[in-house]
């Protein structure tokens, strides 16, 4: 059975006042991760074929072709896990991911 760890290499908490969270997908799984997200989230915009802007459950986020995604306004790890589980696995229960790494 697939898990978040199959897709997610690491999660980084950003160090600006914005408190965004960056999710880095595993290199070999990045295209598959983007496809899964495309299936489930609403694509608001795509820019130059390298940035995909999505909305999912009232959370906006951007996915980059390089295999990184930036989530805004995610309140905590549980909410992020829930979003990622739903987006990548189609599950409504949170999967297991690591704690965001701080960059400050």
């Amino acid at each position: 059975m697939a898990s978040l760890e199959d897709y997610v290499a690491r999660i980084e908490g950003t160090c600006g006042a914005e408190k965004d969270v960056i999710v880095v997908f595993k290199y070999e799984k990045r295209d598959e991760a983007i496809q899964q997200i495309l299936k489930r989230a609403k694509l608001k915009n795509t820019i130059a074929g390298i940035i995909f802007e999505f909305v999912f459950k009232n959370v906006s986020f951007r996915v980059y072709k390089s295999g990184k995604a930036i989530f805004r306004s995610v309140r905590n790890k549980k909410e992020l896990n829930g979003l990622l589980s739903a987006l990548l696995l189609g599950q409504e229960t949170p999967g297991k991911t690591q704690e965001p790494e701080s960059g400050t």
Partner: protein
Amino acid sequence: MRGTTEGINLVAYSWGLRNLKKGDEVLVSLLEHHSNIVPWEILSKINGFTVRYAKVNDDGTLDYEDFENKLSNKTKIASLSHVSNVSGVINDVKRIAKVAHDHGALMLVDGAQSVPHKPVDVKNLDMDFLAFSGHKMLGPTGIGVLYAKKQLLDKMEPFQGGGEMIKDVSFVGGKQQCDISFNDPPWKFEAGTPDICGAIGLMEAVKYLENIGMDQVLSHECLLTGYAIKRMKECGKVILHGPTDTALKCGIIPFSVQGLSSHDVALLFDNYGIMIRSGFHCAQPLHQALKLQSSARVSFYIYNTQKEIDRFVEILKEIEQL
């Protein structure tokens, strides 16, 4: 040392723990890296002294007048970045050291962003302490240097205990204790097996840079910085932070792109294989002073070229159109 951070912590704990008390002051500035703020704040909670912060001007440069006004006979140590890791601005540490010494205070310089980029003469600048890191000057991570005047090292207590830092550890049966005598500096401060590989790697990096010449390194960076600033000014939605006079700075340019967070800018460059830094750059108080949520930072070193800057600006122009 593992790096600049550990060097500053060594001074804080080896010297500060025993010499700073209630009523004393440590003077830093708002443009410091967290590594030159947090150790002093932690220690102040233990010893009861006060950490004071000199202001910055609107462009993020040090307010020298405020720094000098805050130096007093209560100040026991002034601790200042030689070069800001956010703006690249070179601080006149010789001027500050003179005033600090006039007040009987010591002078610690965070050289993380200066030693790799320009000639630094500790004697001419009259620094009491200078800390810097290997990984910012072509060396390995996890190794760095703390320079200190010998007479200060002689008086300072060890930072950590263990092997190598002792001359003698003898168990005295009558006391049921060990009598310990410490080794001479620098070994007194180097408990345990050192990072031998790191030290060899750092020495090779030093030789490599010395062979090029630090004047040449600075000159190359000034050329690239000036060129990059000129080209970045072509971008209508790009805001450059801090001074743009290359005579005042090393090869660091902080910037923002209107309508985009610094993290978006960094991720966009990442798509093109260009790595820049985004966020607070471990200098949150400076960003607060400048009223910035965060900033993007492009920086240069000896291996960068004008052609790479042209590519960087080409992508920046694409990004600002998003």
